[in-house]
């Protein structure tokens, strides 16, 4: 284990010992977040809705603070209104274990490829820079994005809609790296691990796996750049796995170890965590048991309004520009429609530039004047496979895969 990781773990454990022996002396109370830039009230299903806004995290601008250690930082909705690509310094952050190296040396960093291969590899970032390069725009979305809207509520990060982002990823094909090592026949899955470590050594290390055919599809890539620059450390510097169209749980950060397996991966983060009911929209009735569970995988279509907030007032007698973003999930956006009559009739919105099937797509409409009073504005995305956002929210114990139409209440005055 690298020296700095050792330090972090020792620190985390001694924090506990310290608390035991010293009690509260020298530590601050949870309410005093001296470094907050004000706060924000999230429109989630219930209290607590208040979160600090913070710029205290390295290489990050103002972010919604969901958890300090290890960091869970959410992107404020207005960031998505400014452009189709999410700036690196506003891109959301999500870690599981708190032992995160705070220093990564680009020269000595190595990516290991091992397991069921002909030749083990130890690749530097320079080695990767010499390989054929690919670039792809893709949405990275947490499995639990929008968990805060689940009702009944479920434990976990209480995200609003900002645990997602869209970037141009540059790197090499995973296939090319695997071919260089030479996958032996009988290799059925590929397992990925990053430099982060559990705080307690015997706890389950964060590892994720893909089936061999998926890993070799030529789209899954190892990125060393995000929007044309090296990745922020908290987004996985120096290397991150990119799994286009799939939830972020597979996009392993600080990727340092690739292991070809000749048996299915049964580690906790594949077999237990990040599993969903094997039902349409991963939907079950609260309390329902005996459901077959499968690992979460492909994303589904979603759309959001980005220029007005829920509860906004619009002047009556005037047209209103309404715009937002959509994505198709594991394929492109076919259309975005909107309704101002609770979903009885739908009109087409105008789509913005196509940056590829895994990217956010901007949409907009010029809404004719509405009668005075309250209205609900709904947008819905249909993807190229014909999959459309449902009108009813899904529910499952983990708060995964929300993609219901998100109505916006507006008042014309």
């Amino acid at each position, binding site marked *: 284990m690298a020296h700095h990781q050792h330090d972090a773990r020792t620190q*985390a*454990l001694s*924090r*506990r010992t310290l*608390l*035991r022996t010293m*009690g*509260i002396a020298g*530590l601050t*109370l*949870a*309410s*005093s977040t001296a*470094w907050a830039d004000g706060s924000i009230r999230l429109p989630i*299903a*219930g*209290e*607590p809705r208040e*979160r600090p806004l913070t710029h*205290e995290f*390295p290489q990050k601008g103002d972010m919604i*603070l969901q*958890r*300090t*250690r290890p*960091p869970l930082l959410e992107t404020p909705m207005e960031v998505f209104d400014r452009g189709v690509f999410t700036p690196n310094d506003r891109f959301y952050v999500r870690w599981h274990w*708190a032992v*995160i190296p*705070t*220093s*990564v040396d*680009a020269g000595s960093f190595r990516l290991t490829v091992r397991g069921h291969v002909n030749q083990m590899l130890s690749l530097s*970032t320079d080695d990767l*820079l010499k390989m*054929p*390069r*690919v*670039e*792809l725009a893709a949405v990275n979305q947490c499995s639990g994005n929008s968990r805060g809207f689940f009702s009944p509520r479920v*434990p976990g*990060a*209480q995200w609003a809609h900002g645990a997602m982002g869209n970037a141009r990823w*540059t790197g090499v*094909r995973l296939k090319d790296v695997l071919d260089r090592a030479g996958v032996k026949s009988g290799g059925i899955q590929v397992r990925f691990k990053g430099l982060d470590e*559990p*705080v*307690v050594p*015997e*706890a*389950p290390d964060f590892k994720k796996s893909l089936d061999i055919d998926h890993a070799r599809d*030529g*789209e899954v890539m190892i990125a*060393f750049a995000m929007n044309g620059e*090296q990745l922020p*450390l*908290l987004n996985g*510097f*120096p290397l991150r796995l990119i799994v286009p169209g799939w939830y972020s749980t597979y996009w392993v950060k600080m990727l340092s170890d690739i292991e070809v397996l000749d048996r299915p991966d049964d580690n906790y983060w594949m077999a237990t965590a990040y599993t969903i009911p094997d039902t349409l929209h991963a939907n079950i009735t609260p309390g329902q048991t005996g459901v077959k569970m499968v690992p979460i995988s492909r994303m589904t279509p979603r759309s959001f309004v980005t220029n007005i907030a829920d509860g906004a007032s619009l002047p009556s007698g005037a047209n209103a520009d309404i715009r937002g973003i959509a994505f198709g999930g594991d394929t492109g956006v076919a259309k975005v429609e909107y309704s101002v009559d609770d979903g009885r009739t739908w009109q087409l919105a105008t789509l913005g530039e196509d940056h*590829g*099937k895994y990217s956010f797509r901007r949409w907009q409409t010029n809404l004719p004047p509405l009668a005075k009073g309250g209205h609900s504005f709904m947008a819905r995305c249909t993807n190229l496979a014909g999959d459309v956002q449902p009108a009813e929210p899904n529910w499952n114990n983990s708060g995964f895969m929300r993609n219901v139409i998100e109505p916006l209440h507006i008042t014309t005055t």
Partner: protein
Amino acid sequence: MRHATIMMGVLSAALLTSTPAWVQQAPAITSTTVELPSGDQLFPGGSDADAINNNCLACHSADMVLNQPALPKAAWESEVGKMIKTYRAPIDESDVPAIVDYLVKTKGKT
């Protein structure tokens, strides 16, 4: 319409192919060192919070728990159990009732 579809197909294919190296400049990858906030804030509540402060701050900061919705007692018991069994939290069995009590009192739901 067919024409448009074909055009789109060509476009997305183009986005996926590799560009010859001479077209793209090699991005710089430079060593990075950062500092992360410690997240050492305690759970509020004075001595009522002793058990949770002693046992629940090693792996994540208090805000993880404080930002959770109100949950039934059984849900809090199972959360504490998950921390011990799955995540191997080194927690004294004798502290568990006081931790659950704190959670139910501050974030409970019937």
